[in-house]
C-alpha cells in the first residue's frame, strides 16, 4: 500500500507490479474529487490495474489552515470517499485530526517543524479514535537534515508503541523513481524502533483493514459495529 500523486499513472502501475504491491492509494484534493475529468482518468486506469492484479483506491488529502475548515470538509466528504487523510504540520491541526474518528490517516505530523508535532495527549486520542500515524519514506529520502527528521519519527513511534496507536509506513512517492518495495519500507520501520512483526504489519495488515472496513461502511454493510454477514 502506498500514497501517490498524479502524472504518468500507467508507468506507476507497471512499477507497482514489478515491486510486488497489492494496491495503490491515489491522493486527490477537494477540487479534483469534484472534477469529472480526473475521476474518469482514474476509472480508465482501473481497467489496466485489474489486468495487472493491483487494487486502486481513491483517497482525499485535506490540507486545512485551521480547525473549522477541517470540520467543514469532513462533514462534506466522509460519506463519498474511501479514505480520508489529513496533512499535518501545525499542532492545532494535528490534535484536531487525532481527536476526530472520521479521519483515517494523519500524514507527516513533523513536517516543517522543530519538534515531533505530537504529544502524549494526541497519541492517546489517536489510539481511541483509530487514527493511524504515518511515517513518510519520501520525507526521509529528500531530507536535507536527515538525523533531525529521524529523531522526531523515532519519538512518535515510541509514543505510538506505548499507547497502542497504529503506525503506517508509506512511500509518499511523487514520481515512479521514488517508489520502494514494501519489505524495504518495513525495514525502515524496524530501524526506527518498531519490532519486526509490527513493522511488516504496518505495510500490510493495518492499511488493508482500514480499507476493508471503510468499503463495508460505504456499501451499508457495517452500521455502528453491526455487520451484515449474510442475507436470506
Amino acid at each position, binding site marked *: 500500500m502506498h500514497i501517490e500523486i498524479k502524472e504518468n499513472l500507467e508507468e506507476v502501475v507497471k*512499477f507497482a507490479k514489478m515491486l510486488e504491491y497489492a494496491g495503490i492509494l491515489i491522493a486527490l484534493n477537494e477540487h479534483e474529487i469534484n472534477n469529472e475529468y480526473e475521476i474518469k482518468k482514474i476509472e480508465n486506469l482501473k481497467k489496466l490495474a485489474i489486468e495487472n492484479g493491483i487494487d486502486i483506491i481513491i483517497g482525499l488529502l485535506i490540507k486545512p489552515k485551521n480547525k473549522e475548515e477541517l470540520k467543514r470538509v469532513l462533514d462534506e466528504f466522509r460519506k463519498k470517499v474511501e479514505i480520508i487523510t489529513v496533512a499535518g504540520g501545525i499542532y492545532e491541526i494535528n490534535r484536531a485530526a487525532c481527536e476526530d474518528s472520521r479521519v483515517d490517516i494523519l500524514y507527516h505530523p513533523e513536517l516543517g517543524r522543530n519538534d515531533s508535532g505530537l504529544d502524549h495527549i494526541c497519541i492517546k486520542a489517536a489510539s481511541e479514535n483509530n487514527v493511524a500515524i504515518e511515517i513518510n519514506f519520501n520525507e*526521509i529520502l529528500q531530507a536535507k537534515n536527515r538525523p533531525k527528521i529521524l529523531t522526531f519519527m523515532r519519538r512518535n513511534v515510541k509514543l505510538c508503541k506505548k499507547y497502542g496507536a497504529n503506525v503506517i509506513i508509506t512511500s509518499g512517492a511523487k514520481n515512479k*523513481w521514488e517508489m*520502494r518495495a514494501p*519489505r*524495504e*519500507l518495513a*525495514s525502515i520501520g524496524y*530501524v526506527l524502533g518498531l519490532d*519486526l512483526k509490527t513493522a511488516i504489519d504496518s505495510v500490510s495488515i493495518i492499511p488493508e483493514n482500514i480499507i476493508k472496513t471503510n468499503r463495508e461502511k460505504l456499501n451499508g454493510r457495517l452500521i455502528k459495529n453491526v455487520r451484515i454477514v449474510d442475507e436470506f
Partner: protein
Amino acid sequence: MEKPKTLPPVLRENERYIVFEIITEEDIEYEEFTKALWLACLSFLGELYTSEAEIKIIKNLYNPRTKQGVIKCRYDMTEFVRASLALINKIGNKDAIVKVLGITGTISSAKRKYLGFTELESFWKEEGKSVA
C-alpha cells in the same frame, strides 16, 4: 608473507547473503554500484555501524546484463543494510531502485534459488541415474 590460520567454526561470525536486483533503464557497472552502496551505508549508518555490518560485495557474482548480485553481511545487521539499500536513489547520475530478491544462508543456495544457476548433478538426477 605468512597468513594467519582460519578460525574454527565456533569463533567465526554468522553471515547472511542478500541477493539484490537493480531496476534502471541504463547499464550499470560494478564500480558504480559499489561506490553508491558504500556512500549510502556511511551516510545512513555511520562509520561505527558500517564496520559492524562487515559488508562485502561479491565481485564475480555481479551480472551487468541482468543487474543482479550478492552482498555478504553479518546476520544481525541485515535489516540495517536493507534500509540503507532503500535509501539509494541514484547510481552515478542515473535514476535507480535497488530491490532485494531474498536473503540466504549460503552462496550456493543464493545461486540456486534466485540467480538461476543449475548444478551438473541435477541433470543426472532427472534421468534417474546416481552420481558416481
